[in-house]
């Protein structure tokens, strides 16, 4: 009876693992090495991969900069907290293309800041990425703060450290792992975002350090989609493979 239970669970679980693992394995197996090498040597692809890491990095840093203090306040608790929590978590359930539309309504033409242009700009792309990835940074940092025993902060303060000194000497060192994890999660989420970026900033102009000049490119998932539409599955597969390799590296950092 006992082992039957385990076998049953393992069988059902295996179906899921096949559904997740098999396409991945076939995807890797069916790549044409020549095509991958060709794409890997293509300067256009270089720019895309550069942008695909760099843009999300800006978004993740912004998420941390503004998200960690908020996470700290949420961990302490305050009146009306639930409303703020809902607002923070909302982007998690907003359909990705709708998120893009919302950004355009908020910050695009006729939006809050007429002097800031978001449609097809780097600003818009980072905004869109921050919108979808900030919840990850806030929630991970908040968990990190909440996992610290209150009494450690009590012990610090009663023995003379101010609130700020306590944060610097006790809270921050103990939470730093969780905060970094949150940053990497936000980064990964921004790298993977397609819908919101496709709506807000299909193509952007940005300063490309290796060339020392401004160039135009697409966010990597958008570029994969574009390649799929214009060049077909094989060609997009090769680009996707390169992007997946980048994602896998980020993934390994997360773990």
């Amino acid at each position: 009876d006992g082992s039957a239970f385990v076998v049953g669970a393992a069988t059902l679980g295996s179906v899921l693992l096949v559904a997740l693992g098999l396409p991945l394995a076939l995807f890797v197996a069916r790549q044409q090495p020549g095509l991958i090498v060709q794409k890997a040597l293509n300067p256009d692809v270089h720019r895309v991969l550069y942008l695909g890491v760099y843009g999300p990095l800006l978004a993740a840093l912004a998420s941390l900069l503004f998200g960690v203090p908020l996470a700290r306040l949420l961990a302490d608790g305050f009146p009306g907290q639930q409303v703020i929590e809902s607002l923070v978590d909302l982007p998690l359930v907003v359909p990705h293309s709708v998120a893009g539309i919302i950004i355009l309504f908020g910050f695009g033409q006729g939006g809050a800041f007429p002097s800031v242009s978001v449609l097809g700009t780097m600003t818009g792309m980072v905004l869109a990425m921050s919108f979808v990835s900030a919840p990850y940074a806030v929630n991970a940092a908040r968990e990190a703060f909440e996992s610290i025993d209150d009494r450690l902060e009590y012990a610090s303060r009663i023995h003379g450290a101010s609130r700020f000194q306590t944060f610097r000497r006790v809270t921050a060192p103990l939470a730093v792992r969780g905060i970094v994890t949150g940053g990497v999660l936000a980064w990964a989420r921004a790298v993977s975002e397609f819908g919101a970026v496709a709506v807000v900033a299909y193509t952007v102009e940005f300063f490309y350090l290796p060339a020392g000049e401004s160039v135009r490119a697409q966010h990597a998932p958008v570029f994969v989609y574009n390649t799929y539409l214009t060049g077909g599955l094989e060609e997009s597969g090769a680009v996707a493979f390169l992007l997946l390799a980048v994602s896998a590296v980020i993934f390994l950092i997360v773990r």
Partner: protein
Amino acid sequence: MGLSADVTATFTADGADAFVVDATVEVERGESLVVLGPSGSGKTLLLETVAGFHDHEGVVSLDGEALNGLDPEDRGFGFVFQDYALFPHLTVTENAAYGTRYRDDHRDPDDLLAELGVADLCDRYPPTLSGGEKQRVALARALAVRPKVMLLDEPLAALDVPTRQALRDDLAAVLDDVTAVYVTHNRTTARAVADRIAVMRDGQIVQTGTPEAVFERPASPMVAAFTGSNVIAADALRGVVDVPADAMTAAVRPEHVALVDGTGDGGDLTGEVARSVREDAAHRITVDLDADDPRAELSTGAVADGGDARLSLFVADDPPAPGERVGVSVPPERVTLFAAAE
């Protein structure tokens, strides 16, 4: 002068009723006050409120100067926690020295660690220490800031019995000339440490006095039971004590009850031995008294199973066996009577 706290604080947790701490405690300078109470009585919340960790109404003052309104870091206290609360990312020395950079008048943490017998642990990190070692380091951290008042929250509760006894002795020595509030549910610890005891229940102080007064003259059956007295139906003592009509419950400490020779012919009361348990210093004998009219049910709060006419007592040697009939003497002047069973 000394520490004086008269505070009211309300605590709410999800899905539970609000818990109100409404207590007054006074501690003379150099005195150790023990707050004794069962778990859930609000002892820890009271201590944390005095420390400034929780919003409250009322006044906390030290030598006449109001402290409420001040942040915890400005109150000049030291605090020892039940679960140590050492900083896991700092070494033992760094932990002990934690507060010294914030207080001009401080002690050398290395000296303190040596005094407390943990000087050899200096460079270790707290997660690698035993419970007793951790609590010594925590004690050093609190003493290093030369606290005006030491607050201690069940510092021995998480320790093994032998470790607890060793640290209890050291604690009693350390607290000798320190103003301290010490919270515990352990009556032996309370007696070892206290100059005065405040018994707490349901967020309120129900009795304050010297250990002698609280243990010998408990103010209620709950205090009596929690300090280790026998709590029995007053009727069971009619033979030896003048029991007024409205007295429901009587309390007498087991160390005042004595066995007398023979099967009751010489004693004031008779009964049958129910149990004999060897404790550290003596055998604890439990005797079921022969009572004509024992009350069927007696709720004493802390001890639901107190029994109606059952007395504990201590004998040093040759304990009677369970089932043996014995005579028991109860000195009338040691009995406390209560009007209601509470």
